[in-house]
């Protein structure tokens, strides 16, 4: 991955940025124009980098933070057409007039997309909400405040909190170690960090059972010290940590790799220590990528089912997380309750998606005026 990054960096610089030649004529002075092209080029270059970085390992579709930047250009494009470039500072290529694509094809493709998105994405959400609230608010509240539901919710929150905190700290350290130094086995380390993405959640659960379960090799030690991992909270937390390990690291690594180490070197040469360098030089640049990845990581941690299901033992009120509780309710034909509990998670995921978009939007805005 890291060697890959070098490759793509070089290539990104060579490839002429996609949008530049079409530069809009309506802009002010030539200097403005040049600045525009530069930031555009940088954006395209950045998006190229992350685009590829993302594909390599992160099926989260994450890494969007940067590739969104290019999208921002495109999006502003569309809006400018209507508003006449309200912000005035960044006139964009106004390529809309040139497009001569067959309107029939355009219409059909948009229609197909909308129908597909409605069927696959919107309908499942509506189904949950309608079932959850269909029998009235009181019913919903009753299902949600059920003792076992509350216990499951608490366990889910605890698990997510621990897993996300641990993986955020790990992600930062790992990204630092992998992008600030060169060492043997770098590729292997990246592969290990990526591994949980490639492994089925069921296998993720299985390996913890094989390690800490009654027949696992760590069992004698655990028994001797009266520790319980599998079928108990620690096991659930560990399985969740395993499944979400790549999220933060994967997001930060490409951003740090793309920035290079010049600024850190300068800081260190001027006498800053490790922590000062990190907090004052590095962190400001990865702030948004960090927030973004933490959001995605939390989403996954809260919703993890397969891995947790294997290690939990399904003890109601003890080792049941919310998703597992939903499974039990559903299998016992308590559909209303199952959907009511699901609604909590649906609303959470909508909040998460909104937060994600918001972070992208804010981070884009910050980059916009060609700061660098």
């Amino acid at each position: 991955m890291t060697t890959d990054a070098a490759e793509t960096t070089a290539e990104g610089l060579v490839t002429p940025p996609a949008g530049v030649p079409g530069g809009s004529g309506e802009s002010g002075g030539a200097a403005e124009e040049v600045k525009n092209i530069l930031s555009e080029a940088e954006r395209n270059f950045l998006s190229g980098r992350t685009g590829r970085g993302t594909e390599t390992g992160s099926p989260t579709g994450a890494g969007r933070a940067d590739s969104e930047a290019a999208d921002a250009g495109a999006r502003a494009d569309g809006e400018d057409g209507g508003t006449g470039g309200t912000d005035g500072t960044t006139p964009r290529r106004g390529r809309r007039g040139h497009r001569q694509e067959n309107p029939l094809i355009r219409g059909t493709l948009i229609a197909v997309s909308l129908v597909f998105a409605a069927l696959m994405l919107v309908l499942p959400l509506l189904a949950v909400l309608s079932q959850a609230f269909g029998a009235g608010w009181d019913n919903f509240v009753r299902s949600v405040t059920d003792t076992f539901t509350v216990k499951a919710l608490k366990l889910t929150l605890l698990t997510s909190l621990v897993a996300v905190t641990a993986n955020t700290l790990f992600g930062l350290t790992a990204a630092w170690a992998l992008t600030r130094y060169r060492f043997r086995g770098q590729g292997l380390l990246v592969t290990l960090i990526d591994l949980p993405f490639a492994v089925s959640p069921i296998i993720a659960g299985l390996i913890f059972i094989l390690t800490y379960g009654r027949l696992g090799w760590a069992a004698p030690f655990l028994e001797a010290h009266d520790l319980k991992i599998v079928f108990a909270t620690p096991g659930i937390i560990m399985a969740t940590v395993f499944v979400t390990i790549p999220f933060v690291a994967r997001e930060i690594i490409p951003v740090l790799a793309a920035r290079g180490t010049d600024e850190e070197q300068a800081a260190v040469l001027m006498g800053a220590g490790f922590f000062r360098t990190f907090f004052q030089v590095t962190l400001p640049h990865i702030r948004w990528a960090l927030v973004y990845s933490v959001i995605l990581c939390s989403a996954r941690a809260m919703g993890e089912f397969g891995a947790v299901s294997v290690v939990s033992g399904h003890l109601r009120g003890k080792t049941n997380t919310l998703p597992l509780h939903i499974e039990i309710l559903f299998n016992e034909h308590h559909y209303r309750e199952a959907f009511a509990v699901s609604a909590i998670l649906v609303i959470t995921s909508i909040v998460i998606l909104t937060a994600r978009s918001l972070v992208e939007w804010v981070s884009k805005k910050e980059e916009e005026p060609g700061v660098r």
Partner: protein
Amino acid sequence: MAKAKRIIPGFGLTMGLTMSYVGFFVLIPMVSMALVTADLSFKEIVKSATDARVLSSYKVSFLCSFLAAAINTVFGTILAWVLVRYRFAGRRLVDGLIELPFALPTAVAGISLTWLTTNKGWIGGPLSKLGLEIAYTRVGIVVALTFITLPFMVRSIQPVLEQLSPDYEEAGRTLGAGSLTIFRKIILPELKPAMLTGFSLAFARGLGEYGSVIFIAGNKPFQTEIAPLMIVTRLEEFLYGQATAVALFMLAASFIIMFLVNRLQIRAARFVES
């Protein structure tokens, strides 16, 4: 970067922490799998991994994942294209929703899709009058996997499309090429690597997916049992060795896919570079 080797402090600290963390959470558990495997004889592994019921679960898993990835190759590409190239009402909403399958817990997706497609659901109801069934059949598994793996496809293609300048298409159009020719000769060659990547990621994820599938599948042996469920079944029977054997097979499959993806990406990078 090479020269920067030791100028920046913190090598020992960050490397130490990273290694211990990866060691504890990834390496040790994976090693136990190897240990359990080492305890089994080759014969046992083959026998457990190729039991008739297990074989049929592979078939279901591979077939359904393949179909779901194929469906997403078509619709995901269209979605990515529409989202990148066109401006229309609701575009941002759709763009935001693409990641829903990542954000939504798989169990919730599972029960929701199941409810929708049973013969009492919004979709399954009308369909059942036509004699079509989705829930508790392999079609249901494909539906669940299509939902789960949709973002992989769209998010693989989107960045490439954003990079792809419409100038070439315009040039083609000016020279008299029809829409189909432009798609085949100009757009498709550029998108192919990303489509393959998206397909493989979707396929690999589909093979391992559990939460969303078990609700809608009905889990009938030899018909709608997926491979991850076989691992769970064996575990519940306390047949750890057999579970491990099946897991090994699935791991091998997903590693081969991941390896192919990496190869594809290296090739794609070269292609763009030249």
